[in-house]
Protein backbone atom coordinates (compact mmCIF):
# COMPACT_ATOMS: atom_id res chain seq x y z
CA UNK A 1 0.00 0.00 0.00
CA UNK A 2 2.83 2.37 0.80
CA UNK A 3 4.34 1.89 -2.65
CA UNK A 4 1.03 2.64 -4.30
CA UNK A 5 0.71 5.69 -2.13
CA UNK A 6 4.04 6.99 -3.39
CA UNK A 7 2.99 6.54 -7.00
CA UNK A 8 -0.25 8.31 -6.29
CA UNK A 9 1.36 11.18 -4.54
CA UNK A 10 3.71 11.68 -7.48
CA UNK A 11 0.97 11.76 -10.05
CA UNK A 12 -1.85 13.16 -7.90
CA UNK A 13 -2.80 16.76 -7.97
CA UNK A 14 -2.32 17.29 -4.24
CA UNK A 15 1.20 15.97 -3.94
CA UNK A 16 2.61 19.30 -2.88
CA UNK A 17 0.69 19.32 0.38
CA UNK A 18 1.04 15.66 1.44
CA UNK A 19 2.57 15.56 4.88
CA UNK A 20 5.78 13.66 5.54
CA UNK A 21 6.19 11.24 8.41
CA UNK A 22 2.64 9.91 8.60
CA UNK A 23 1.33 6.59 7.40
CA UNK A 24 -1.10 6.65 4.49
CA UNK A 25 -4.37 8.16 5.74
CA UNK A 26 -2.90 8.82 9.20
CA UNK A 27 -3.90 5.55 10.95
CA UNK A 28 -1.32 2.76 11.28
CA UNK A 29 -1.90 -0.41 9.29
CA UNK A 30 -2.68 -2.55 12.37
CA UNK A 31 -5.48 -0.25 13.39
CA UNK A 32 -6.87 -0.12 9.88
CA UNK A 33 -6.90 -3.90 9.73
CA UNK A 34 -8.77 -4.02 13.04
CA UNK A 35 -11.34 -1.51 11.80
CA UNK A 36 -11.74 -3.35 8.50
CA UNK A 37 -12.45 -6.55 10.40
CA UNK A 38 -15.08 -4.67 12.40
CA UNK A 39 -16.60 -3.28 9.20
CA UNK A 40 -16.80 -6.75 7.66
CA UNK A 41 -18.65 -8.01 10.70
CA UNK A 42 -20.93 -4.96 10.67
CA UNK A 43 -21.79 -5.52 7.01
CA UNK A 44 -22.47 -9.19 7.71
CA UNK A 45 -25.00 -8.33 10.43
CA UNK A 46 -26.90 -5.30 9.10
CA UNK A 47 -27.75 -2.80 11.82
CA UNK A 48 -25.82 -4.57 14.58
CA UNK A 49 -23.42 -2.36 16.53
CA UNK A 50 -19.97 -3.92 16.50
CA UNK A 51 -17.54 -2.71 19.17
CA UNK A 52 -14.07 -1.67 18.02
CA UNK A 53 -10.92 -0.20 19.54
CA UNK A 54 -11.50 3.41 18.68
CA UNK A 55 -8.25 5.44 18.52
CA UNK A 56 -7.42 8.93 19.61
CA UNK A 57 -7.67 11.16 16.56
CA UNK A 58 -6.20 14.61 16.07
CA UNK A 59 -9.60 16.23 16.57
CA UNK A 60 -12.05 16.22 19.47
CA UNK A 61 -14.78 13.67 20.03
CA UNK A 62 -18.01 14.83 18.47
CA UNK A 63 -16.25 16.26 15.43
CA UNK A 64 -16.36 13.03 13.49
CA UNK A 65 -13.67 10.78 14.98
CA UNK A 66 -15.72 7.67 14.21
CA UNK A 67 -16.35 8.66 10.63
CA UNK A 68 -12.71 9.62 10.08
CA UNK A 69 -11.46 6.27 11.35
CA UNK A 70 -13.84 4.38 9.07
CA UNK A 71 -12.87 6.56 6.10
CA UNK A 72 -9.16 6.18 6.89
CA UNK A 73 -9.51 2.39 6.90
CA UNK A 74 -11.47 2.28 3.65
CA UNK A 75 -9.70 4.87 1.57
CA UNK A 76 -7.17 3.91 -1.10
CA UNK A 77 -5.01 6.06 -3.37
CA UNK A 78 -7.54 5.71 -6.21
CA UNK A 79 -10.47 6.98 -4.15
CA UNK A 80 -12.15 10.35 -4.44
CA UNK A 81 -13.43 11.78 -1.20
CA UNK A 82 -16.35 14.08 -0.54
CA UNK A 83 -17.08 15.37 2.96
CA UNK A 84 -20.28 17.15 3.93
CA UNK A 85 -21.49 18.64 7.15
CA UNK A 86 -25.22 19.52 7.33
CA UNK A 87 -25.28 19.00 3.58
CA UNK A 88 -22.68 21.64 2.88
CA UNK A 89 -19.20 21.08 1.44
CA UNK A 90 -17.83 24.37 2.69
CA UNK A 91 -18.46 24.24 6.44
CA UNK A 92 -15.50 24.19 8.82
CA UNK A 93 -15.76 20.55 9.75
CA UNK A 94 -16.14 19.38 6.15
CA UNK A 95 -13.28 21.52 4.91
CA UNK A 96 -10.89 20.38 7.62
CA UNK A 97 -11.68 16.68 7.27
CA UNK A 98 -11.26 16.93 3.50
CA UNK A 99 -7.96 18.72 4.00
CA UNK A 100 -6.91 16.11 6.56
CA UNK A 101 -7.23 13.33 4.01
CA UNK A 102 -5.71 15.25 1.15
CA UNK A 103 -2.69 15.96 3.36
CA UNK A 104 -2.31 12.53 4.96
CA UNK A 105 -3.38 10.36 2.01
CA UNK A 106 -2.96 12.63 -0.96
CA UNK A 107 -6.29 11.49 -2.38
CA UNK A 108 -8.43 13.50 -4.74
CA UNK A 109 -11.27 15.34 -3.07
CA UNK A 110 -14.42 16.63 -4.67
CA UNK A 111 -17.66 18.36 -3.86
CA UNK A 112 -19.55 16.47 -6.60
CA UNK A 113 -21.60 13.62 -5.17
CA UNK A 114 -21.43 11.72 -8.47
CA UNK A 115 -17.64 11.82 -8.65
CA UNK A 116 -16.98 10.68 -5.09
CA UNK A 117 -16.28 7.06 -4.24
CA UNK A 118 -16.39 7.72 -0.49
CA UNK A 119 -18.69 10.31 1.04
CA UNK A 120 -18.25 11.13 4.69
CA UNK A 121 -21.25 12.89 6.11
CA UNK A 122 -22.63 14.49 9.19
CA UNK A 123 -26.40 15.15 9.44
CA UNK A 124 -27.38 14.62 5.81
CA UNK A 125 -27.58 12.18 2.92
CA UNK A 126 -26.94 13.92 -0.42
CA UNK A 127 -30.02 14.68 -2.53
CA UNK A 128 -28.37 13.11 -5.59
CA UNK A 129 -29.09 9.38 -5.64
CA UNK A 130 -26.06 7.37 -4.63
CA UNK A 131 -25.03 4.53 -6.89
CA UNK A 132 -23.71 1.05 -6.30
CA UNK A 133 -19.98 1.11 -5.62
CA UNK A 134 -20.08 4.27 -3.58
CA UNK A 135 -19.66 4.20 0.20
CA UNK A 136 -21.33 6.68 2.51
CA UNK A 137 -19.72 7.03 5.95
CA UNK A 138 -21.85 8.57 8.69
CA UNK A 139 -20.48 10.29 11.76
CA UNK A 140 -22.47 9.04 14.73
CA UNK A 141 -22.58 10.69 18.15
CA UNK A 142 -24.85 8.17 19.93
CA UNK A 143 -25.20 4.80 18.20
CA UNK A 144 -27.68 3.29 20.66
CA UNK A 145 -31.30 4.08 19.68
CA UNK A 146 -32.65 2.71 22.99
CA UNK A 147 -30.25 4.72 25.17
CA UNK A 148 -32.65 7.42 26.29
CA UNK A 149 -35.40 5.01 27.21
CA UNK A 150 -33.39 2.24 28.82
CA UNK A 151 -30.16 3.54 30.33
CA UNK A 152 -28.79 0.13 31.38
CA UNK A 153 -26.32 -0.92 28.64
CA UNK A 154 -26.53 -4.59 29.61
CA UNK A 155 -30.31 -4.60 29.41
CA UNK A 156 -30.22 -2.77 26.08
CA UNK A 157 -27.86 -5.36 24.58
CA UNK A 158 -30.22 -8.09 25.74
CA UNK A 159 -33.16 -6.29 24.16
CA UNK A 160 -31.29 -6.16 20.84
CA UNK A 161 -30.31 -9.81 21.15
CA UNK A 162 -33.90 -10.91 21.78
CA UNK A 163 -35.43 -8.38 19.38
CA UNK A 164 -37.49 -6.84 22.17
CA UNK A 165 -38.28 -3.44 20.72
CA UNK A 166 -41.59 -2.67 22.42
CA UNK A 167 -39.88 0.06 24.40
CA UNK A 168 -39.00 1.94 21.20
CA UNK A 169 -42.70 2.24 20.50
CA UNK A 170 -43.28 3.58 24.01
CA UNK A 171 -41.14 6.51 22.92
CA UNK A 172 -43.25 7.03 19.81
CA UNK A 173 -46.43 6.63 21.88
CA UNK A 174 -45.23 9.36 24.24
CA UNK A 175 -44.61 11.67 21.29
CA UNK A 176 -48.09 11.21 19.91
CA UNK A 177 -49.80 11.60 23.27
CA UNK A 178 -47.82 14.76 23.96
CA UNK A 179 -47.64 16.42 20.54
CA UNK A 180 -50.35 14.71 18.52
CA UNK A 181 -47.78 13.32 16.11
CA UNK A 182 -44.41 11.59 16.15
CA UNK A 183 -42.30 14.63 16.90
CA UNK A 184 -38.90 13.06 16.38
CA UNK A 185 -37.47 15.01 13.45
CA UNK A 186 -33.92 13.68 13.33
CA UNK A 187 -32.19 10.44 14.34
CA UNK A 188 -35.52 8.76 13.66
CA UNK A 189 -35.19 5.07 14.58
CA UNK A 190 -35.27 2.48 11.80
CA UNK A 191 -35.58 -1.28 11.59
CA UNK A 192 -32.84 -2.76 9.41
CA UNK A 193 -33.50 -5.89 7.40
CA UNK A 194 -36.41 -6.77 9.70
CA UNK A 195 -34.06 -7.48 12.56
CA UNK A 196 -32.13 -4.71 14.34
CA UNK A 197 -33.45 -1.33 15.39
CA UNK A 198 -30.78 1.20 14.45
CA UNK A 199 -30.07 4.86 14.98
CA UNK A 200 -29.52 6.42 11.56
CA UNK A 201 -27.27 9.09 13.16
CA UNK A 202 -28.68 12.61 13.40
CA UNK A 203 -29.88 12.86 9.81
CA UNK A 204 -33.31 14.52 9.39
CA UNK A 205 -36.11 12.01 9.01
CA UNK A 206 -36.47 13.53 5.54
CA UNK A 207 -33.45 11.40 4.58
CA UNK A 208 -34.71 8.15 6.12
CA UNK A 209 -36.47 6.92 2.95
CA UNK A 210 -33.19 7.32 1.06
CA UNK A 211 -31.61 4.65 3.26
CA UNK A 212 -34.12 2.04 2.18
CA UNK A 213 -32.62 -0.24 -0.48
CA UNK A 214 -29.85 2.28 -1.16
CA UNK A 215 -27.46 0.96 -3.84
CA UNK A 216 -24.45 2.36 -1.93
CA UNK A 217 -22.87 0.79 1.13
CA UNK A 218 -23.66 2.69 4.33
CA UNK A 219 -21.23 2.55 7.24
CA UNK A 220 -21.74 4.29 10.57
CA UNK A 221 -18.82 5.13 12.85
CA UNK A 222 -19.14 6.27 16.46
CA UNK A 223 -15.69 7.17 17.79
CA UNK A 224 -16.47 8.07 21.37
CA UNK A 225 -18.89 5.18 21.85
CA UNK A 226 -16.51 2.81 20.01
CA UNK A 227 -19.14 1.25 17.76
CA UNK A 228 -19.38 0.62 14.02
CA UNK A 229 -22.49 -0.56 12.21
CA UNK A 230 -23.49 -0.84 8.61
CA UNK A 231 -26.27 -1.26 6.11
CA UNK A 232 -25.20 -3.25 3.02
CA UNK A 233 -26.45 -2.16 -0.43
CA UNK A 234 -30.07 -2.91 -1.26
CA UNK A 235 -31.11 -3.65 2.33
CA UNK A 236 -34.58 -2.90 3.68
CA UNK A 237 -34.58 0.01 6.11
CA UNK A 238 -37.96 0.76 7.61
CA UNK A 239 -38.75 3.77 9.77
CA UNK A 240 -40.70 2.72 12.86
CA UNK A 241 -44.29 3.94 13.09
CA UNK A 242 -47.82 3.07 14.16
CA UNK A 243 -50.48 1.73 11.81
CA UNK A 244 -52.66 4.75 12.52
CA UNK A 245 -49.74 7.22 12.65
CA UNK A 246 -47.61 6.28 9.65
CA UNK A 247 -44.11 7.64 9.10
CA UNK A 248 -44.04 10.95 7.20
CA UNK A 249 -41.28 13.26 6.03
CA UNK A 250 -41.20 17.03 6.35
CA UNK A 251 -42.65 19.17 3.59
CA UNK A 252 -42.10 22.85 2.91
CA UNK A 253 -44.53 25.33 1.46
CA UNK A 254 -41.52 27.19 -0.02
CA UNK A 255 -39.03 26.15 -2.64
CA UNK A 256 -35.29 26.85 -2.64
CA UNK A 257 -34.65 30.59 -3.13
CA UNK A 258 -31.57 29.89 -5.25
CA UNK A 259 -32.33 26.91 -7.45
CA UNK A 260 -36.10 26.63 -7.00
CA UNK A 261 -36.03 22.98 -5.97
CA UNK A 262 -39.26 21.72 -4.43
CA UNK A 263 -37.96 18.28 -3.52
CA UNK A 264 -34.88 18.96 -1.42
CA UNK A 265 -34.31 19.53 2.28
CA UNK A 266 -34.39 23.27 2.93
CA UNK A 267 -32.47 25.34 5.45
CA UNK A 268 -34.11 28.44 6.85
CA UNK A 269 -31.72 31.39 6.84
CA UNK A 270 -32.49 34.65 8.63
CA UNK A 271 -31.24 37.47 6.47
CA UNK A 272 -31.67 40.63 8.57
CA UNK A 273 -32.86 42.00 11.90
CA UNK A 274 -36.38 42.52 10.59
CA UNK A 275 -37.06 38.80 10.54
CA UNK A 276 -36.76 38.34 6.79
CA UNK A 277 -35.79 34.83 5.93
CA UNK A 278 -35.03 32.68 2.94
CA UNK A 279 -35.09 28.98 2.31
CA UNK A 280 -32.22 27.33 0.49
CA UNK A 281 -31.17 23.75 -0.21
CA UNK A 282 -29.03 22.34 2.57
CA UNK A 283 -27.21 20.21 -0.03
CA UNK A 284 -24.89 22.81 -1.59
CA UNK A 285 -23.66 20.53 -4.36
CA UNK A 286 -27.19 19.67 -5.49
CA UNK A 287 -28.16 23.34 -5.42
CA UNK A 288 -25.15 24.56 -7.41
CA UNK A 289 -25.62 21.81 -10.00
CA UNK A 290 -29.22 22.83 -10.52
CA UNK A 291 -28.14 26.46 -10.80
CA UNK A 292 -25.53 25.56 -13.37
CA UNK A 293 -28.12 23.63 -15.33
CA UNK A 294 -30.50 26.57 -15.28
CA UNK A 295 -27.76 28.95 -16.43
CA UNK A 296 -26.93 26.55 -19.20
CA UNK A 297 -30.50 26.76 -20.46
CA UNK A 298 -30.40 30.56 -20.42
CA UNK A 299 -26.94 31.00 -21.92
CA UNK A 300 -26.23 28.56 -24.73
CA UNK A 301 -22.58 29.62 -24.83
CA UNK A 302 -22.05 28.68 -21.22
CA UNK A 303 -23.22 25.13 -21.82
CA UNK A 304 -19.97 23.74 -23.21
CA UNK A 305 -17.95 25.29 -20.48
CA UNK A 306 -19.97 23.52 -17.79
CA UNK A 307 -19.99 20.30 -19.70
CA UNK A 308 -16.23 20.50 -19.87
CA UNK A 309 -16.14 20.84 -16.09
CA UNK A 310 -17.94 17.50 -15.86
CA UNK A 311 -20.82 18.77 -13.78
CA UNK A 312 -23.58 18.12 -16.29
CA UNK A 313 -22.09 15.12 -17.99
CA UNK A 314 -22.14 13.32 -14.68
CA UNK A 315 -25.78 14.02 -14.07
CA UNK A 316 -26.78 12.39 -17.33
CA UNK A 317 -25.72 8.90 -16.33
CA UNK A 318 -28.62 8.08 -14.08
Amino acid at each position, binding site marked *: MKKQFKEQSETGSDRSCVMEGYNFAYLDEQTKRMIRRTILKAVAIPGYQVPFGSREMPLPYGWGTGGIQVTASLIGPEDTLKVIDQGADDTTNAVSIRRFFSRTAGVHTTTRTREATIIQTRHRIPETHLRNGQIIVYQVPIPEPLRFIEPRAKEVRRMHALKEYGIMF*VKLYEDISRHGRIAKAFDYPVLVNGRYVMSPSPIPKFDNPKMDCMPALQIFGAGREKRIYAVPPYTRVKSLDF*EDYPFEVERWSKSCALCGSEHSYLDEIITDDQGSRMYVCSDTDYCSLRLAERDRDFQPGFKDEIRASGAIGERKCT
Partner: protein
Amino acid sequence: MYMKGPDQVPLLKVESISKFYGRRIGCHGIGFELWPGEVLGIVGESGSGKTTLLNCISGQLEPSEGAVWYASNGGVIDMCKAPEPQRRLAMRTEMGTVYQNPRDGLRMHVSAGGNIGERLMANGLRHYGRVRRRALNWLEKVEIDQERIDDTPGTFSGGMQQRLQIARNLVTGPRIIFMDEPTSGLDVSVQARLLDLLRGLVTELDLSMVIVTHDLAVTRLLAHRLIVMKDGKSVESGLTDQVLDDPQHPYTQLLVSSILQP
Protein backbone atom coordinates in the same frame (compact mmCIF):
# COMPACT_ATOMS: atom_id res chain seq x y z
CA MET B 1 -62.17 -19.73 44.38
CA TYR B 2 -59.84 -22.19 42.75
CA MET B 3 -60.82 -25.67 41.70
CA LYS B 4 -58.58 -28.66 41.41
CA GLY B 5 -59.82 -30.79 38.56
CA PRO B 6 -58.53 -34.33 38.13
CA ASP B 7 -56.88 -33.58 34.77
CA GLN B 8 -55.45 -30.20 35.75
CA VAL B 9 -51.80 -29.53 36.32
CA PRO B 10 -50.57 -26.91 38.75
CA LEU B 11 -49.85 -23.57 37.13
CA LEU B 12 -46.60 -23.33 38.99
CA LYS B 13 -44.70 -26.14 40.62
CA VAL B 14 -41.75 -25.17 42.76
CA GLU B 15 -39.36 -27.98 43.65
CA SER B 16 -37.07 -27.39 46.64
CA ILE B 17 -35.72 -24.02 45.58
CA SER B 18 -32.52 -22.86 47.26
CA LYS B 19 -30.58 -19.68 46.78
CA PHE B 20 -27.23 -19.12 48.42
CA TYR B 21 -25.40 -15.83 48.49
CA GLY B 22 -21.93 -17.24 49.08
CA ARG B 23 -22.12 -18.87 52.49
CA ARG B 24 -25.23 -16.94 53.38
CA ILE B 25 -28.58 -18.59 52.82
CA GLY B 26 -31.22 -16.67 50.87
CA CYS B 27 -33.83 -19.39 50.96
CA HIS B 28 -33.44 -23.11 51.32
CA GLY B 29 -35.40 -26.15 50.16
CA ILE B 30 -38.76 -24.52 49.55
CA GLY B 31 -41.38 -26.26 47.43
CA PHE B 32 -45.05 -25.69 46.72
CA GLU B 33 -47.66 -25.86 44.01
CA LEU B 34 -49.81 -23.01 42.79
CA TRP B 35 -53.12 -23.84 41.13
CA PRO B 36 -55.08 -21.68 38.68
CA GLY B 37 -57.04 -19.03 40.56
CA GLU B 38 -55.19 -19.58 43.79
CA VAL B 39 -53.61 -16.87 45.95
CA LEU B 40 -50.59 -17.89 47.94
CA GLY B 41 -49.23 -15.72 50.72
CA ILE B 42 -45.63 -15.80 51.84
CA VAL B 43 -45.11 -14.22 55.25
CA GLY B 44 -42.14 -13.84 57.54
CA GLU B 45 -40.02 -11.19 59.15
CA SER B 46 -37.71 -9.00 57.15
CA GLY B 47 -34.59 -10.84 56.04
CA SER B 48 -36.31 -14.22 56.09
CA GLY B 49 -35.82 -14.72 52.34
CA LYS B 50 -39.31 -13.89 51.12
CA THR B 51 -38.22 -11.61 48.31
CA THR B 52 -35.38 -13.92 47.29
CA LEU B 53 -37.89 -16.73 46.94
CA LEU B 54 -40.23 -14.55 44.93
CA ASN B 55 -37.46 -13.43 42.60
CA CYS B 56 -36.41 -17.05 42.08
CA ILE B 57 -39.85 -18.27 41.14
CA SER B 58 -40.68 -15.29 38.97
CA GLY B 59 -37.62 -15.86 36.81
CA GLN B 60 -35.74 -12.76 37.87
CA LEU B 61 -33.09 -14.55 39.90
CA GLU B 62 -31.43 -17.83 39.10
CA PRO B 63 -31.78 -20.22 42.05
CA SER B 64 -28.75 -22.21 43.21
CA GLU B 65 -30.75 -25.44 43.34
CA GLY B 66 -34.22 -26.65 42.51
CA ALA B 67 -36.62 -26.15 39.63
CA VAL B 68 -39.66 -24.04 38.85
CA TRP B 69 -42.10 -25.63 36.43
CA TYR B 70 -44.54 -23.25 34.84
CA ALA B 71 -47.50 -24.51 32.79
CA SER B 72 -47.46 -21.80 30.12
CA ASN B 73 -49.94 -21.56 27.27
CA GLY B 74 -47.30 -23.14 25.06
CA GLY B 75 -46.57 -26.10 27.37
CA VAL B 76 -44.73 -26.69 30.62
CA ILE B 77 -41.39 -24.87 30.87
CA ASP B 78 -38.66 -24.82 33.48
CA MET B 79 -38.31 -21.17 34.42
CA CYS B 80 -34.73 -21.70 35.56
CA LYS B 81 -33.42 -23.53 32.49
CA ALA B 82 -35.68 -22.47 29.62
CA PRO B 83 -34.01 -20.43 26.88
CA GLU B 84 -34.05 -16.74 27.66
CA PRO B 85 -36.37 -15.63 24.82
CA GLN B 86 -38.99 -18.18 25.88
CA ARG B 87 -38.67 -17.24 29.52
CA ARG B 88 -38.89 -13.52 28.86
CA LEU B 89 -41.87 -14.00 26.57
CA ALA B 90 -43.68 -15.87 29.34
CA MET B 91 -42.64 -13.20 31.83
CA ARG B 92 -44.02 -10.32 29.81
CA THR B 93 -47.22 -11.95 28.57
CA GLU B 94 -48.38 -14.47 31.14
CA MET B 95 -46.77 -13.14 34.30
CA GLY B 96 -46.62 -9.85 36.09
CA THR B 97 -44.61 -8.46 38.97
CA VAL B 98 -45.73 -5.67 41.25
CA TYR B 99 -42.84 -4.26 43.24
CA GLN B 100 -42.80 -2.80 46.68
CA ASN B 101 -41.32 0.42 45.32
CA PRO B 102 -43.26 1.70 42.29
CA ARG B 103 -40.02 3.17 40.97
CA ASP B 104 -38.79 -0.38 40.30
CA GLY B 105 -41.88 -1.37 38.39
CA LEU B 106 -42.78 1.81 36.52
CA ARG B 107 -40.98 4.00 34.04
CA MET B 108 -41.11 7.23 35.96
CA HIS B 109 -40.45 9.55 33.01
CA VAL B 110 -43.05 7.86 30.79
CA SER B 111 -46.73 8.82 31.03
CA ALA B 112 -49.31 6.56 32.68
CA GLY B 113 -50.67 5.58 29.27
CA GLY B 114 -47.19 4.69 28.02
CA ASN B 115 -46.56 2.62 31.12
CA ILE B 116 -49.72 0.62 30.61
CA GLY B 117 -49.17 0.33 26.86
CA GLU B 118 -45.57 -0.88 27.08
CA ARG B 119 -46.41 -4.56 27.36
CA LEU B 120 -48.98 -4.33 24.59
CA MET B 121 -46.44 -2.77 22.27
CA ALA B 122 -43.78 -5.25 23.38
CA ASN B 123 -46.16 -7.98 22.28
CA GLY B 124 -46.54 -6.49 18.84
CA LEU B 125 -49.50 -4.09 19.00
CA ARG B 126 -48.66 -1.30 16.52
CA HIS B 127 -51.83 0.75 16.63
CA TYR B 128 -51.77 3.94 18.72
CA GLY B 129 -55.55 4.24 19.00
CA ARG B 130 -55.93 0.72 20.31
CA VAL B 131 -53.09 1.08 22.81
CA ARG B 132 -54.70 4.28 24.03
CA ARG B 133 -58.14 2.72 24.39
CA ARG B 134 -56.78 -0.23 26.35
CA ALA B 135 -54.82 2.15 28.61
CA LEU B 136 -57.92 4.25 29.32
CA ASN B 137 -59.90 1.14 30.00
CA TRP B 138 -57.35 -0.10 32.51
CA LEU B 139 -57.03 3.25 34.23
CA GLU B 140 -60.74 3.07 34.85
CA LYS B 141 -60.47 -0.47 36.18
CA VAL B 142 -57.83 0.49 38.72
CA GLU B 143 -59.79 3.60 39.68
CA ILE B 144 -57.44 6.25 38.35
CA ASP B 145 -59.01 9.31 36.74
CA GLN B 146 -58.80 8.85 32.95
CA GLU B 147 -57.70 12.47 32.56
CA ARG B 148 -54.42 11.53 34.19
CA ILE B 149 -53.42 9.30 31.26
CA ASP B 150 -50.76 11.71 30.01
CA ASP B 151 -49.29 12.49 33.42
CA THR B 152 -46.09 10.84 34.56
CA PRO B 153 -46.22 8.53 37.59
CA GLY B 154 -44.08 11.03 39.48
CA THR B 155 -47.14 13.25 39.84
CA PHE B 156 -49.22 10.39 41.28
CA SER B 157 -49.73 9.55 44.93
CA GLY B 158 -48.21 6.37 46.35
CA GLY B 159 -51.48 4.48 46.17
CA MET B 160 -52.09 5.56 42.58
CA GLN B 161 -48.59 4.50 41.60
CA GLN B 162 -49.24 1.05 43.03
CA ARG B 163 -52.54 0.82 41.16
CA LEU B 164 -50.81 1.94 37.98
CA GLN B 165 -48.25 -0.84 38.43
CA ILE B 166 -51.08 -3.31 38.72
CA ALA B 167 -52.76 -2.00 35.56
CA ARG B 168 -49.45 -2.12 33.69
CA ASN B 169 -49.05 -5.79 34.61
CA LEU B 170 -52.62 -6.89 34.03
CA VAL B 171 -53.06 -5.31 30.61
CA THR B 172 -51.82 -8.38 28.75
CA GLY B 173 -54.12 -10.66 30.72
CA PRO B 174 -51.46 -12.62 32.64
CA ARG B 175 -52.20 -15.79 34.59
CA ILE B 176 -49.89 -15.19 37.53
CA ILE B 177 -49.08 -12.01 39.39
CA PHE B 178 -46.16 -11.83 41.79
CA MET B 179 -46.48 -9.15 44.42
CA ASP B 180 -43.68 -8.02 46.63
CA GLU B 181 -45.05 -6.10 49.63
CA PRO B 182 -47.57 -4.19 47.49
CA THR B 183 -49.17 -2.40 50.43
CA SER B 184 -46.23 -1.42 52.57
CA GLY B 185 -45.51 2.28 52.38
CA LEU B 186 -49.20 3.07 51.94
CA ASP B 187 -51.37 4.42 54.70
CA VAL B 188 -54.08 2.21 56.12
CA SER B 189 -57.07 3.60 54.23
CA VAL B 190 -55.20 3.44 50.92
CA GLN B 191 -54.09 -0.11 51.75
CA ALA B 192 -57.68 -1.15 52.29
CA ARG B 193 -58.74 0.33 48.97
CA LEU B 194 -55.88 -1.36 47.12
CA LEU B 195 -56.63 -4.72 48.72
CA ASP B 196 -60.28 -4.37 47.85
CA LEU B 197 -59.35 -3.65 44.24
CA LEU B 198 -56.96 -6.60 44.13
CA ARG B 199 -59.53 -8.98 45.53
CA GLY B 200 -62.01 -7.85 42.90
CA LEU B 201 -59.53 -8.28 40.07
CA VAL B 202 -58.41 -11.71 41.23
CA THR B 203 -61.96 -13.04 41.14
CA GLU B 204 -62.90 -11.20 37.97
CA LEU B 205 -59.88 -12.32 35.96
CA ASP B 206 -59.33 -15.71 37.59
CA LEU B 207 -55.77 -14.73 38.46
CA SER B 208 -53.27 -16.72 40.42
CA MET B 209 -51.16 -14.70 42.75
CA VAL B 210 -48.11 -15.08 44.94
CA ILE B 211 -48.04 -12.29 47.46
CA VAL B 212 -45.10 -11.61 49.72
CA THR B 213 -45.84 -9.56 52.80
CA HIS B 214 -45.09 -9.15 56.45
CA ASP B 215 -48.61 -7.93 57.07
CA LEU B 216 -50.81 -10.79 58.26
CA ALA B 217 -53.96 -8.74 57.70
CA VAL B 218 -53.18 -8.62 53.99
CA THR B 219 -52.83 -12.39 53.77
CA ARG B 220 -55.96 -12.93 55.84
CA LEU B 221 -57.87 -10.85 53.31
CA LEU B 222 -56.38 -12.18 50.08
CA ALA B 223 -54.51 -15.45 50.44
CA HIS B 224 -56.02 -18.90 50.25
CA ARG B 225 -52.87 -20.58 51.44
CA LEU B 226 -49.91 -19.42 53.44
CA ILE B 227 -46.23 -20.21 53.74
CA VAL B 228 -44.46 -18.93 56.84
CA MET B 229 -40.74 -18.36 56.40
CA LYS B 230 -37.97 -17.95 58.90
CA ASP B 231 -34.24 -17.79 58.21
CA GLY B 232 -34.71 -18.85 54.60
CA LYS B 233 -36.74 -21.94 55.41
CA SER B 234 -40.43 -22.67 55.33
CA VAL B 235 -41.49 -23.37 58.91
CA GLU B 236 -45.20 -23.83 58.38
CA SER B 237 -47.67 -23.91 55.53
CA GLY B 238 -51.35 -24.58 55.05
CA LEU B 239 -54.70 -22.90 54.55
CA THR B 240 -54.59 -19.28 55.65
CA ASP B 241 -57.27 -19.49 58.30
CA GLN B 242 -55.81 -22.71 59.62
CA VAL B 243 -52.34 -21.26 59.98
CA LEU B 244 -53.48 -17.98 61.47
CA ASP B 245 -56.09 -19.41 63.85
CA ASP B 246 -54.13 -22.44 64.99
CA PRO B 247 -50.44 -21.75 64.52
CA GLN B 248 -48.25 -24.78 65.26
CA HIS B 249 -44.69 -23.53 64.97
CA PRO B 250 -43.45 -21.31 67.80
CA TYR B 251 -42.37 -18.65 65.31
CA THR B 252 -45.81 -18.54 63.70
CA GLN B 253 -47.38 -18.30 67.14
CA LEU B 254 -45.12 -15.37 67.91
CA LEU B 255 -45.98 -13.74 64.58
CA VAL B 256 -49.72 -14.13 65.07
CA SER B 257 -49.65 -12.97 68.69
CA SER B 258 -47.69 -9.87 67.75
CA ILE B 259 -50.59 -8.35 65.82
CA LEU B 260 -51.99 -5.40 67.67
CA GLN B 261 -55.68 -5.71 68.37
CA PRO B 262 -57.40 -2.34 68.10
